């Protein structure tokens, strides 16, 4: 089905990435230069993410996930 296909692909990709790394989970303190990059943060561009959340909150029935779902907005 059209709806389940991307979901399945995502799940497979996520599990592959995770399982492949199981034997060496984590990074030593001296191995963190990449993880400290601004673009490797969990939310690298929070202002833009906030703008996106506001658009989708006002046009769709879902919100949140990455963070809190309340919109503080009368748009939905």
């Amino acid at each position, binding site marked *: 089905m059209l709806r389940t296909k991307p979901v399945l692909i995502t799940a497979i990709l996520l599990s592959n990435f995770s399982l492949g790394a199981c034997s060496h989970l984590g990074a030593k303190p001296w191995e*963190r230069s990449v993880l400290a990059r601004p673009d490797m943060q969990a939310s690298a561009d929070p202002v833009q993410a906030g703008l996106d959340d506001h658009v989708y909150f006002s046009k769709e029935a879902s919100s949140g996930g*990455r963070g809190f779902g309340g919109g503080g907005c009368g748009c939905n």
Partner: protein
Amino acid sequence: MQLTPEEKRRALAAATLTLLGGGLPSAQAEDKTWDIDTAVMVYAESDNRVQAVEPVLKGTLNLGAERYFTAKLVVDTLTGASPNGATPASTPQTFAGPSPYTADPNETPLDDRFRDTRFQGVVDYQFPLSDMDTLGFGVNAGTEYDFVSLGANLRYARDLFQHNTTLSAGLNFESDSIDPVGGIPIPLAVMRPASDSDDDDMNGWRDGSSDSKTVTDVVLGWTQVIDPKSLFQMNYSLSRSSGYQNDPYKVLSVVGTDGEPLRYVYEARPDSRSKNALFMSYKRFVFGRDVTEISYRYMTDDWGINSHTVDLSYRWYFGSAHYLEPHLRWYSQTAADFYHVALDDGEESLVSEASADTRLAEFDAVTAGIKIGSAVPGRGNWSLRLEYYQQSPKLSGVPTQAADGLSKFDLQPELSAVMLTMGYRFTW
């Protein structure tokens, strides 16, 4: 490379702030510095529907010792027209109100009085309790012409296993009040006829009052460093909203078997809503240069809506410090149990809840975009992003007796929008 404690914490403590859609500033200095993050979004829907301009100014003051004070101001200027929920008709339709509006034959009725300016302010403070623990709290307030929102949140994050795992918990409370023009309409009551335009007290169709709702959000998060180049995040969130959930400007058409409207009734939603969401994200540094991220969210609520969201982005660095970032987002939702395109004659007295708001309908949506920007450490960085959004509705909630009569109309037209975002971020 041996990192400073500041950099080590930065790599993991981000999970705390992301609960608020925050994120740590890029400033590396130990001195008191402001990380200023600004953006303007221009949002334009097709067919002269909603147009918005939304500037954001966010400043994060690095107080040293991993303490951050953040202030953010958002202004949102909206104009244009929005569907009022009614179905098209073969003849012009005029809708009552303080300023009546008319829809042409066979056109989706749009309320063109849609005009508002929203102001939102956020103040936030985050500080470490120990090398392993971070606490953050924030307050926010928003005002619109007919809407006021006040909120407060508290977040806690704990690092484990040499900062490779972060567990976090966040609690957000929001209190909203709504005071629509003419007062709150009585659910499922008939919208007064347009010919009755001198009827200032609305004759009981609107009860003249305001209303309120409260929203409580809980988010539990797990962020895991997989290896020196990748990060996995999973959040579970629960959101409970109690109180007034209706859109006071939305109606439903009550139609005859020929599909033509007999009257309009105000929508009626349940007085509470509980949402559960699971969010997963995987981010990886690839080819010693680029960053790619894939995320998935599943949401389910007690209104019968389930949704899936898949988001993919790839930041490709070219030259010494510039990137190009294609982005794809796919979204799909089912309809709310009480969603109806329209109601059959007399059905409004048989149902206790009904809404024709297209945001509660079944649809798929796709966003495709591209972003270009600079990423020079310690310098001001700009970005420019262009995105296209399209919603493709699937027809549902058609009243049985009027199904044939309504089939001559385009009941759920597609919605498309273009979004242009300009950003500039610098340390001061």
